[in-house]
């Protein structure tokens, strides 16, 4: 399986704290790779480095062969890597439909001159809305399309976050705890969606999760991070039966 996303010996320090301390990983194309670890292990920081919010102090991150360490978040997204946030950051003052319609890349209407190419913009808006409406329906959010995002429940906001990420039509999706705060039903929906997107659209996923049933069911391989470093990696079974992993998770 070709590797589409690679992190080599990445370090990130904050003052004296080593948030990411020489972490490496490989994400294969069209795979759903999992990243687990106890709280504070450095997973979200690693995501932030990968997504461009921080630059790595040392080490390399590459995506499709290009080095992306040090690029701005918007540049990285344009290249095809989209991430979601641990606590869903919906744009509360905008409506649900505005949130998802914001996402698609390279919209003509997004430059001041392009905004006046009426025919182009109208065409694109129609196309994007068709896609968005379908997505919202699957996520069960269609009924709330005209609601302000801040009025959604926690689980709904997570789904909105994921929908938005999907609308950017990425090649790789970094999901930070996509089912946190979601109900059992919503969790099932999200898991099914991830699988479907991988199968039908060929998306690659890197998922940080705490819920074991999610990780073990859909992710393969799984990396375990501890204190900013690699602890173990392998198939779900391998990771589950790994001594060190069990120690760290205290029977998890």
């Amino acid at each position, binding site marked *: 399986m070709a590797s589409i996303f690679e992190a080599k010996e990445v370090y990130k320090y904050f003052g004296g704290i080593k948030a990411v301390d020489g972490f490496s990983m490989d994400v294969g194309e069209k795979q759903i790779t999992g990243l687990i670890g106890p709280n504070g292990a450095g997973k979200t920081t690693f995501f932030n480095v990968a997504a461009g919010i921080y630059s790595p102090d040392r080490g390399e991150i590459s995506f499709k062969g290009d080095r992306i360490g040090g690029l701005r978040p918007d540049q990285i997204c344009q290249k095809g890597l989209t991430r979601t946030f641990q606590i869903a950051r919906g744009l509360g003052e905008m409506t649900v439909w505005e949130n998802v319609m914001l996402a698609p890349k390279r919209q003509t209407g*997004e430059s001041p001159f392009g905004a006046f190419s009426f025919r182009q913009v109208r065409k*694109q808006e129609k196309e994007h809305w068709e896609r968005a409406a379908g997505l919202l329906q699957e996520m069960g959010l269609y009924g709330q399309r005209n609601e302000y995002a801040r009025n959604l429940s926690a689980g709904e906001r997570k789904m909105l976050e994921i929908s938005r990420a999907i609308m950017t039509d990425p090649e790789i999706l970094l999901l930070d705890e996509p089912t946190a705060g979601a109900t059992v039903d919503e969790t099932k929906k999200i898991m099914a969606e991830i699988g479907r997107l991988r199968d039908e659209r060929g998306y690659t996923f890197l998922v940080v999760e705490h819920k074991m049933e999610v990780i073990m069911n859909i992710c393969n391989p799984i990396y375990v991070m501890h204190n900013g470093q690699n602890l173990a990696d392998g198939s779900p079974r391998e990771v589950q039966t790994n001594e060190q992993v069990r120690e760290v998770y205290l029977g998890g």
Partner: protein
Amino acid sequence: MEYLLTILTIVGIYCILGLALNLHFGYTNLPNFGIAGFFAIGAYTSAILTVPYRFLEMEIFAGFPGGVPGRIEAPFIVGILAATVLSGFVGFLIGIPVLRLREDYLAVASIGVAEAIHFIALNELWLTIGSAGIRLIPMPFANRYLFFLIVLLVLAIVYWVISRLVRSPFGRVWRATREDETVTASLGKSIVRSRMWAWVIGCAFMGSAGSLWAHYAMAIQPGEFVPTTTFLVWIFVIVGGLRNQKGVLIGALVIIGLFEQGTRFLPAFGAPYVVPALRLIIIGVLLVVFIRFRPEGVLPERATMIEDHMKTI
């Protein structure tokens, strides 16, 4: 009737300033306290290009083919277009360092910029004739009624352009940036580009307003482009409704129309400076009260439904 026309013309020009500020602060969260500066750039540019007498007597122009450009005397349309473009361009140059600043630092920086422009207007006599000001600026068609229509036309254009931009995907990016930069960036939008465009377009329109002012008043002086002017615009934008263009227009009509101009007809009590000072005091109090009790203004922003959006896009 004449008098009403005067008031409405001034209100119209202030409306343009207000819509531009609304673009900056209402839609993009860029507190621009240097409005007077861009207003001045527009006014002076238009004035310098259109006055029917010799100007710009500087050695550096001596090398021009034909010697010092005597009378440029361009038509009004050139004046207003040049004012708009130059104001936008200066906005761009200033925006490069300024837009990175945190909101209150940006506010202070923009005040500084406006003061710098005011200083140049006051002291660079070769460019602006200093405090005596520039006179005999021609009003197009020399007809107040027609000029009012011109003001309305420019206002309509500005209103429509901003409206279109806000409803477009571009406007979505502005509003998203305003709310949460990190998320917007994570969706692949360039924050810098989107902000800079808002800034430049707003400054350009302030320049247009400046040009209209110069041709309406037919004489300008540095003393007109002071923080008080900036402040007035802020007041009626906040009172009328941030992020709602109609609200801005209403705010301008009420505050500028009734207050600034209407009270000119009340009997002046005390010395001549008392009534203007009183007006400003009331306006200052109004600002504090509004921010305290109703910061979203009279007409707040409203959400659009997807169905309506698809019909009007």
